[in-house]
């Protein structure tokens, strides 16, 4: 009993560096962000209640950024899910050159973002490859990065970069479905569609949850590519919440930035809460 207690204490000691790290680098900054969002500025430190939030929701730039970010999430996450799942189903079969294709699809993950962006700029600029192609087939060229199609570029970039990773997750999920269940379904005459929708999809629900979670996280990391692609003040269509926060940080507007970060945090919590609820509902009758 004494030995167990001592081992427990030693375990806590080993955890201590991580706990201190989390406290210093996550918990404290989070607390400071909340504090900053409630004061007039860090110099006078005058408590203003929800005034920063009220100002934020009236700020047009924030509203544009919030709207664009939401559109990006709504477009990119389902598209990634569908594309990754389809690819996973494809590669589940014994396809010719499967491993090479898988490697090709996964390769964007290992390519440095900055070099990728240079290529993408060459593709999507006013006189880029895509515009020239359009002009060649008789359409007008499009300045993708500075037009209302800007969001499309970001979505394509997101898909290109992340579909491979999500596909691997789905492949793992598909591989973990009990073979007996599939055998039974086939024996009982289930069609391919029935097998997919009634069996595989049901058993993939935990994987779905995880993939959506990862996609949401990755979608917020697309800012890096977007930033390198168009700078800190892009066209209206490509202006995301991270642009807003990054720019307000640069102009010392920590209050606006902190309030925006808190709103984003609440938004994320709401999204995750919904995801958890759906996952719990979908997985309640699974073994």
């Amino acid at each position, binding site marked *: 009993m004494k030995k167990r207690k001592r081992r427990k204490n030693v375990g806590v000691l080993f955890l201590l560096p991580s706990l201190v790290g989390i406290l210093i680098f996550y918990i404290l900054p989070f607390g400071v962000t909340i504090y900053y969002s409630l004061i007039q500025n860090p110099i*006078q430190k005058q408590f203003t209640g929800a005034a920063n939030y009220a100002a934020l929701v009236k*700020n047009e*730039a924030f509203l544009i950024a919030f709207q664009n970010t939401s559109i990006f999430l709504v477009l990119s996450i389902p598209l990634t899910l569908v594309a990754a799942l389809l690819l996973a189903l494809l590669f589940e079969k014994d396809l010719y050159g499967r491993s090479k294709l898988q490697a090709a699809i996964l390769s964007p993950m290992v390519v440095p973002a900055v070099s990728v962006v240079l290529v993408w700029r060459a593709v999507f600029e006013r006189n880029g490859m895509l515009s020239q192609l359009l002009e060649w087939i008789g359409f007008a060229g499009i300045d993708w990065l500075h037009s209302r199609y800007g969001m499309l570029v970001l979505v394509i970039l997101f898909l290109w970069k992340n579909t491979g990773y999500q596909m691997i997750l789905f492949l793992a999920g598909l591989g973990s479905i009990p073979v007996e269940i599939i055998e039974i379904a086939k024996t009982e005459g289930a069609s391919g569609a029935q097998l997919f929708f009634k069996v595989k999809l049901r058993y993939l629900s935990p994987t779905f949850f995880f993939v959506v979670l990862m996609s949401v996280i990755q979608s917020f990391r697309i800012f890096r590519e977007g930033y390198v692609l168009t700078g800190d003040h892009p066209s209206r269509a490509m202006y995301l919440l991270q642009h807003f926060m990054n*720019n307000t940080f640069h102009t*010392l*507007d920590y209050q606006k930035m902190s309030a925006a970060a808190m709103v984003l945090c609440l938004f994320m919590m709401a999204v995750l809460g919904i995801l958890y609820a759906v996952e719990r509902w979908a997985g309640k009758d699974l073994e």
Partner: protein
Amino acid sequence: MKRFCSLLAMLLTVVLLLSGCSFGRKQTEGPGTQGEGNVSGDTYGDETVFQTSLFYFDSWDFMISTWAVYDSEIYVLRMDAGSYCIVVCNEKGEPVRRIDLPALKSEIARVFCGMFVDDAMQIWTISSEPTDNPNEATTYGLYCFSQEGELLLKQNLNEIIVDGDPWNFLDFVVGQGLFFLNYYGEENGIAVLSEKGEYLGNIRTGTGDPGRILKDRAGNLYYANTDQEKVVLYEIDADSFSLSQQARMLPPVSIKWIQPGLDSDFLAATGDGIYELSLDSEEATPAVDFESEGINSTIRGFYTTGDNTVLLVTFGFAANGNVQLVSLSKVPVSQAKEKKKLTLVTLSADPALYQQVLTFNQKSEDYRIQVKEYFVNDGVANVETAVESAVTQLNADLAAGVAGDLIDLESLSTMASVRAYVKKGVLENLDGYLEGQEQEWISNLRSALEIDGELYQMVPSFYLRTVAGRTSIVGERQGWSLEDYNRMRAEYPELKPFSYGTKQEALYYALMYNQKEWIDWESAECFFDTDSFAGYLEFADQFPDQSEYEELPPYWNNAEEIYNGDVLLYDADRVDIGMYDIRRIQGVMGEQITWIGFPVEEGVGVVFDPVINLGVLSSSDQKEAAGEFIRYFLSDEFQKSQTGAFPVREQILYENMEQIRKDNPGSMDGWGSGTIDMSFGDIQEDQVESVQKLLQNASQTNQTDSVIVDIMQEEAAYYFAGERSAAEAAQRIQDRVSLYLKEQN
């Protein structure tokens, strides 16, 4: 759990103990990094400190050749009326008597290597007598004069140092009853002379970079060699005419002048202050910080006197043109007056501001200002990145409220937005600190500086920036539109509009002069998506992509093409109260000129160009003291001293203008470049009137927002490259700038 807690407590104790180890660690700091509350000119760990007193010699910098101190009298050797003379001054720099030296004709003689007064009060110096005949060598002589100026001795040094050609002298030091002349040439050496100037022998000191002779407090003489940033000392043995084999080291400080110490072995002056050097510990202790004490850091030497005082003479001091004499006396700490320290933060200090900081530090009995520069160009590879990092650091410190007390906004004028600082509560409203003097400001400058109806920037003086044209071409009115400009261009298609400037620069100026029409900060709206702005893009497109000059030309070196009539307009970037610029431009343009201004949508294309722009930081806990510095710039003394830039107080401005017109100081002025050589003539009434009218027409400053400039340049580049139409580029700029403004709102 109990065990865990005790373990944690042990761990914390160890951490605290380890951190405590650094408390006693000796800090190596420059004299400028003394902590708050230190007294003026402190020394660490001692009970005495240097007390600074500042005086001036009534003499212009270039007149002084050399100086020496004997028995608390200062001997200043200067040229006057064809020959050298010595003005003997007291410790306050006041002339006591004059010694003429007719033997040293200033037309031929050049005193260059110091002066010494011996115990018999004989004055010794070295002078050269260069010759126009290339076959004849310059004559170098050691001279000795009586207190009446009678030549007592002239020793030809060329005969003494026969194999030292070409050679020169570095030091003229007296010690152990002998003279030591440190010279360099093909072979370096020290010539030793008796107290009567008789040559006794030579000490060879090697070849290559010569060293210097130093004398310590005990009177020992050393030859100092700089070897890989260390100063190595060899004692001079005058008996055997040799250097000791045993070397001693000096602390690694960048020594410019060195003298025997008062309490230490040596006192050394560097670029930022005076240090006490110890040979035993090889340590340098900060003793006097030039900046804090208001001492011009470019000094021409110092002496220690018998009564525990250091006398120091600077090079010309811009405040009144006179040479500064500094007396540093050692006093007990209890007698030294404590000055409160204020920190002025700047990206990079402008010399004009720095001079004012020195002047304030001299005058103020209660405060001293320390300048904290965030960017120092000490040979960084990528200046742009280094400046950006410096601005980021400065902004972080500002936001955290730890930057200082005052801020030099002029140094940040192209890198940061004053408006953003105001919105974030970084700057203090100055109205409360100016004691109503802001009401005396030129009203249009005040309006131009106001943000949301309040004043956060202190601009004590300014120039005007505008565009000048020949009256015969542009007419007599001030102000014109882009359409007017285009009409004039069409009339003179063969002439260049401006002498130089690129597309990017032209667009930048268009923004600078038109920003009031294009940007409304209050409503966070902008108006770039107009035909008018597209017109400015087309205007900028007429300029070359790259500058015609690989390096920015020196001021006005392109004047000849204007003088020849090949250029229509002139970018007058420094219209001054002294009417210097208007007369020079008239001279170059060869006729009457009009301040037509940059083509603008509304009003006249003229902007205020602040010389100094200061703000008080709201995080400062010494705002009253900061306010004193701010008020200093509005004092009659400062405002009336402005003869180049326009002072901000309206009444003094017009008084100064009138005084300048009456005095006509420019009537003796002239200007030349290349084949142009002109003298200005008197200031004319119409010239004064035109400058006054220009002043009244100015309504904005030259401050631009760097983000907006970047967006404009970025989008315009596509237009300049032919990838977009002007209207498309204008629309893009509108789109992005409007988002930026909304972000700021």
